[in-house]
């Protein structure tokens, strides 16, 4: 019996940003994101209240998906970060920290939201046009003639996640693998005639093995349960080079009646058993496969044991229960069409090809390795990731997928941004300088007073610098040099007196500026109002040898993150009412 309850009226909150509860929650979220940021970030353990699986992570994707808030404004921001991540994979924490910081600065400055929004918008344009300039000081061209900058890009992504628990050597190994896998998926040769299609990387994770055992193979690794590898199979699998014909099914070939839907079925006693009829049909399919000289017979779901038996008797390699995740890669690699029907004969064009297949032992698992049919470039490759435990393996897997995405983004825009907080400090100095010198015109065109404009400008620049500051979690000091406006983190315990050069590290955060080769640098603590901001100089490549960049971030991802952060901050600032349906 259903009860009729009176519908509660909606709850309307006036200017939510002024509520202390909302502010508290926003601060908490900001702290969580900030403390996760960077290679020294802190991890979060997430689990539910009934003792479910414990997720240990500092990755924004995993974290934001696992954590949800009751606050509509936070939900809004979380959703936009996740949306950004689904398109670019990288810079999730960056977006969050910058967005919260912008909101915070506007609230503290006492500017009216409408004024702040206008100023933020204009400064965002300054930033994007700066980043898109040819001679922008934060940009580095990605050189495809050598792997160096690609590896640096990949390593910056992988090393920024402490929960992967990798040594330096392991980081290098995994970054190289990520680049290797990426290069395998890029087609080469004449691509002018047809549109370029990137291949894909399938990740297989193996727990309990050494990280250095991780590898990349061209082709696919398919999980085969031990019992399925009959002794006769192993012999056949090693048979000479192909190509072999392959049939792929997505429909269940288990021989049950589940496809017929709901309802009763009445079978007359004398009539043949429906199960037998289906089995007959399956065997007919098998017969066709045998006459068509199929060598590899695969199914996403279950294959009836009798059919399996029949196929194996005729020398076919049978693999069942592939799972949906592998279907698309197999289709892409072999050129097969996934068949979703067993009642009709297999159309000849549905067959695909593999060059060969053999059993490979990966860690403790035996897997079937399918070799791609065509040389030269296989479009599909498999990355086997090994790590000592599940938590670190999951984090590593996420990091590698992120690295792959970041590397792919470089194909569209072959540039990277200086990492280690240097882009933020450099950009903040540039924006601050440009804004101050052109304050009068800008204020006039926006229709705000010049003092308001300068207030907004200061907040914007501080927010950018906050991101660089967020890299530090251990009470260290952050410096910025007055010539190039790069970021110089000084670890804690190496106490800093102002101007004490002895304690400043040898290079800046990204590694581009070296103290030894550039005498006469002056430093000042970051995020203090240092008196005069010169237009920061671009680091010339005149010094030899050119210093090695340590950290490189994705240009495309960061540019979009910047836009999302500013727009989200503006949107949240603009919200006057929150109306909640509490029913």
């Amino acid at each position, binding site marked *: 019996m259903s009860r009729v309850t009176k519908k509660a009226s909606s709850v309307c909150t006036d200017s939510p940003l002024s509520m202390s509860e909302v502010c508290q929650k926003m601060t908490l979220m900001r702290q969580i994101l900030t403390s996760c940021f960077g290679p020294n970030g802190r991890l979060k353990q997430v689990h539910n209240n009934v003792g479910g699986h414990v997720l240990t992570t500092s990755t924004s994707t995993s974290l934001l998906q696992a954590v949800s808030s009751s606050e509509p404004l936070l939900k809004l921001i979380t959703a936009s970060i996740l949306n950004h991540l689904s398109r670019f994979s990288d810079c999730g924490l960056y977006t969050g920290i910058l967005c919260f910081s912008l909101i915070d600065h506007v609230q503290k400055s006492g500017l009216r939201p409408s004024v702040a929004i206008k100023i933020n918008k204009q400064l965002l344009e300054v930033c994007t046009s700066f980043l898109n300039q040819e001679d922008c000081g934060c940009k580095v061209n990605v050189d495809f003639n050598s792997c160096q900058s690609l590896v640096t890009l990949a390593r910056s992504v992988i090393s920024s996640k402490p929960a992967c628990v990798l040594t330096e050597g392991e980081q290098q190994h995994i970054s190289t693998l990520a680049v290797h896998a990426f290069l395998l998926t890029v087609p080469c040769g004449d691509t002018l005639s047809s549109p370029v299609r990137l291949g894909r990387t399938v990740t297989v994770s193996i727990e309990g093995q050494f990280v250095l055992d991780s590898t990349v193979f061209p082709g696919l690794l398919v999980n085969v349960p031990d019992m399925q590898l009959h002794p006769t199979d192993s012999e056949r699998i090693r048979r000479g080079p192909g190509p072999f014909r392959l049939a792929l099914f997505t429909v269940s070939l288990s021989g049950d009646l589940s496809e017929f839907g709901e309802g009763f079925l009445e079978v007359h006693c004398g009539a043949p058993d*429906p199960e037998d009829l289906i089995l007959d049909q399956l065997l007919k399919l098998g017969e066709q496969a045998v006459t068509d000289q199929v060598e590899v017979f695969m199914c996403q779901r279950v294959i009836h044991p009798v059919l399996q038996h029949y196929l194996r008797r005729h020398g076919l390699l049978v693999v069942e229960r592939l799972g949906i995740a592998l279907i698309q890669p197999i289709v892409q690699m072999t050129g097969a069409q996934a068949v979703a029907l067993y009642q009709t004969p297999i159309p000849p064009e549905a067959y695909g090809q593999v060059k060969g297949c053999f059993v490979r032992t990966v860690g403790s698992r035996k897997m079937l390795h399918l070799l791609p049919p065509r040389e030269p470039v296989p479009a599909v490759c498999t990355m086997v990731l090994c790590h000592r435990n599940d938590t*670190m393996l999951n984090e590593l897997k996420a990091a590698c997928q992120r690295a792959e995405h970041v590397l792919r983004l470089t194909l569209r825009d072959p540039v990277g941004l200086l990492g280690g907080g240097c882009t933020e400090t450099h950009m903040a100095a540039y924006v601050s300088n440009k804004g101050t010198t052109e304050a009068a015109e800008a204020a006039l065109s926006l229709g705000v007073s010049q003092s308001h404009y300068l207030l907004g400008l200061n907040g914007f620049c501080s927010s950018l610098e906050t991101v660089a500051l967020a890299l530090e979690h251990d009470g260290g000091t952050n410096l910025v040099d007055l010539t190039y406006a790069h970021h110089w983190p000084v670890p804690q315990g190496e106490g800093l007196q102002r101007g004490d050069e002895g304690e400043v590290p040898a290079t800046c955060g990204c590694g581009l500026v070296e103290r030894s080769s550039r005498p006469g640098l002056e430093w000042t603590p970051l995020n203090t109002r240092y008196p005069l901001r010169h237009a920061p100089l671009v680091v010339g490549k005149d010094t030899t040898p050119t210093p090695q960049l340590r950290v490189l971030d994705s240009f495309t991802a960061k540019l979009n993150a910047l836009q999302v952060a500013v727009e989200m901050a503006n949107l949240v600032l603009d919200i006057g009412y929150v109306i909640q349906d509490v029913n």
Partner: protein
Amino acid sequence: MSILQASQKMGSTIISQRLHVGLQQLTALAAVTHSFLGPNKNHKFIQDESTGESSLVCTCFRVLEHLDLTCSVGQLANETIQAHQKVFHSGAGCLLFMAGVWSRAALECLHRGISIPHIVSAMSEGLDICWEVCRSNSVSIEDIRPVASDSGISVLQGSPHTVLRNPVTGMNSSHGALNNKKQSRIKLTHSRHFCANDKADGNTTPGLFPHAVSSKGVDIPHLAEAVSHGCVDAMSLVVEVSKIQSKNNGSGDSCRTFDVNKLVTCTLPGLSEDHSCVLPGCVVLLSAEQASLVHHMKEQKWQVVLINGDLSEKYRHLGFNNKNDISQVTDKLDLKGLSKEDDWEDNVLTTLLKNNVNLVLVNGEASERLTQHCMRHRILVVERVKPDILKDFAETTGAVPVTYATQLSKHCVGTGVEISIWRDCSGNRRRASMAVNIVADRTALVTVVLTTSVHSKLRTLEDCFWGCAYRLHHTLKDRKLLPGAGKTELLCVQTLQKHIEDNGEQTRGKDVASAPRAKQGRAGNPHRADVFQLMADGWMDYISTLMLNSGTCSKVDAWTTINQQLKDLNEGLSLDANFARLLLRDDTEDGMMSPDMKRSAGKVYDNMTVKLEAWRKALDLVFLVLQTDTEIITGIDPKQVEGQSNVMVL
């Protein structure tokens, strides 16, 4: 609505860092298993208050299995331990112990105000140093040979190549250390760390012994003794297994091969422990009725079929969605009274008889009626056979496993199986009471029958046996061993202390102010010495706990002894054999220990890969917990947490 609760366990301020709850939890959890360290294990009873059930445990991973781990750190630890156990089947206790002591070390570092990146970098550097120490001090298994009995106690080091004998020249000068490293590199060509190519190409070759570790020129019984770690009885069973496998492999009577993958255990409660034994093939328990059939089947080769799944009419393969809404309708009276099941039974029986099958091995359950029918036709049906056993029979007899008995045909039948009654166990009113031994021709499969009169000890015995089996397996796989009984740990402590001294000299020797920060990162870590000392204390704790558990001395005495040993080591004296012997319970007064046993006490060895991996994983666990600052609990009702001071709601 999903609500998030964030409990800030550790903020960014130093004061709250000192109360790092996660590290404390890890230390507390590890303390539970301290008594399992060493050869003299104390058993523990775990009792479930709610159900009243209790179980007897003496291994670390079994304890964690039984504990209700509500804290997230506990779950993380359990996950690590089980993963390690799954791969190595040994060393879990060492892992948890080290995780415990090192989390205490990390906590102490936080107390001293050392920042987390510094702790992490120094600790992983410390471990790297000790890895290198272990590698250069590992002993090749070819060098571990029985010592001539009259040479006395002084022959502690089995290997003439070990650096252990001369620690000063080996470690003091950096030049010597370099040489060592090189040497060990060359030696380690068999290690899987350095032979990535070998491994990549190591696709399994089908054959009789795909996994057997070749062990040319190696004395397996002696090696087994070296890694028995006090489980003498279990290890002698392992050696017996090796003997049988070698015989089947054609190596004659000598002990040359050991394949842990061709090994199954069968537990029989009721018999006393001396009845444990090793048999070729597999052992199954049958009812007296079925066993009487076996009497007629003696001393002949029989034909076998293998069934994957249940042997019954109702059974359908995995993934088959059985529809219940199919009904049979009929328009005439069924006079014969034959059900579908009768039809099926007839069908199966005809098939079996047609193919001259005498033995049916079923993975799942077998229909009782069919089993009876088969018996009348002198066909033995054995149910609940382990998949490993089925697989071995498939390989050796040529039988092809099928899911449905109706699909059997001539080529599915395997040949050459012998059946014999091994033992009558009918004393204890069990339904299946006859132990029957089934052996296929040329099989490598060996069954170890473990018996005990105390039922609750069965699992402990089994764990102990598998521990021994895998220790031997890893020994043959690594082809290297580490000096055991705490000697390796002692060397690590010594090396770390040496590094601490060098560190001190370096900083004193240099003009700190003018020294450029040339050495970035690790070398520039100002707290390196502190962290190393705390890490070394962890290993000291390990050795002293070993000694404490052996019952020979108190913890304080242990520390004194260890420090004395360290001093001797530094002065260039070799490790005292007595030191190692301290770890065995000294029963000499009762006349329990023969002089032979005394001598063998000095020759305890540990598995290298297992130990190093356990250390690495322990440190991983500590790092994960150390770097965690917030625990987030999702799905909590906000009203529930009102008034709790240490939680915040998001």
